[in-house]
């Protein structure tokens, strides 16, 4: 019964509501434009909600997706950002790259040593280029006194 169009329209309606209440204290000058946007957005998503309740046969959103592959990647990406904050960019990147080079490999040809070596190389090159050529100092992490 619930299809992606109903769910997405409902979520956007809820978000509109949240933004409306967050912006309730805004002055006339600062609140005028956002209020117009919220009203228009709620209107369109309302139409979508009604439309999708009438219309059937909407294909499911995640057809054919393998959760086994997707979920580790999502967790990995989130953990990667957390790791950057904790142990800094260089080490976190090395870990992330090495783990996923191995994990995503279908051919089983990539040896652990190879993935670590390649990950170290990539990290080192980019770390060097950004720190010394582009002068963008990358974060060193809380553990190492960032």
């Amino acid at each position, binding site marked *: 019964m619930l299809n992606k169009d109903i769910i997405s329209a409902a979520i956007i309606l809820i978000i509109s509501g949240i933004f409306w209440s967050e912006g309730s204290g805004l002055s006339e000058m600062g609140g005028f434009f956002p209020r117009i946007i919220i009203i228009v957005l709620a209107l369109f998503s309302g139409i979508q909600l009604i439309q999708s309740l009438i219309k059937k046969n909407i294909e499911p959103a995640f057809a054919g997706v393998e959760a086994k592959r997707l979920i580790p990647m999502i967790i990995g990406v989130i953990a990667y950002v957390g790791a950057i904050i904790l142990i800094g960019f260089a080490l976190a990147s090395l870990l992330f790259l090495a783990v996923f080079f191995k994990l995503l490999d279908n051919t089983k040809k990539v040896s652990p040593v190879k*993935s670590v070596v390649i990950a170290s190389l990539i990290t080192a090159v980019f770390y060097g280029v950004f720190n010394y050529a582009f002068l963008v*100092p990358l974060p060193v992490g809380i*553990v190492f006194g960032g």
Partner: protein
Amino acid sequence: MKKIKVFASILSLLLIVGVFAGCAQNGEEGKDEFNYPTKTIKYVVPFNPGGQSDLEARRQQKPLEEKLGVNVVIENKPGGGGAVGWSELVRKDPDGYYLTGMNIPHIILQPLARENAGYETDQVNPVALFQGTPIGLAVQPDSPYNTLDEFIEAGKAKPGQITVGGSGTYSGHHITLMQLQDKTGAEFQYVPSQGAAPSVQSYLGGHVDALLANSNDLVQHQDKMKILAIGSKERFEPLPDVKTFMEQDIDMTASIDRGVAVPPETDKRIIEKLEKAFLEIAKDEEIRAQMKEEGFLPLAMGAEESKQYINEMKDKYSAILEKVQAESK
């Protein structure tokens, strides 16, 4: 399975090496005797690359490296009109290796005007002020007003009908107009733009009647405007014919001042060392000449003097803001 084990152990080995390397570095810093600076100093500019604050920091970068004997890297951390950079600054370790450019009146007005700016004015620990940008008031060349008096009179006769462009809300330009209205009783319609360049553009296109602008923009566009007054204490050298507000019996100054700050509770000796380097650069004749050429006022105020100046301005501005906010209620 075996391969995974090998893999895991290689990774953990790397981690351990990394942690040790990190600790070793930390250990060296732990020495008590005063030896500063010994490593790269980060000089954060809380504005976009290419802005005046950024250009100023980049002008100082090489001389700073020479005077301090260590590398200085510039990092742009823009956002919220500087607030993002200053919020970060006041949360940093006070070890002297993290400096941030500071702008007055931004650091005074943001905490006053915003509920949660992320920092308080007195947390921004000044080292030096090195550049002033007096704010001036200009009208269109074909405007009927030729003097500040005429302009003020018009603002009283037709309250809110004369538009004045400027950069930002609760910014240096905005507070200047509030001050002017407060001192004279005239009333203008402020039309803020996002930044100085768009406001100058809006003025040159004739979309506003008058403009509040930084001295460098006034110098650059002086042939397309009648400048009625400027916010410096004394006559501003690059615009010798323009009278100050004070000369025209309006007791106010208006300026955006650039300096540099460190986190709260930084060691006095560190501040002294940095102050010395920044003031030497600020007093360099060649740099002073460059600044004047570009339309700025070279300053050289040390830490204590800067702190006093900030407190003075804070008292002034909070009084005006309170009054304006009380009136609007």
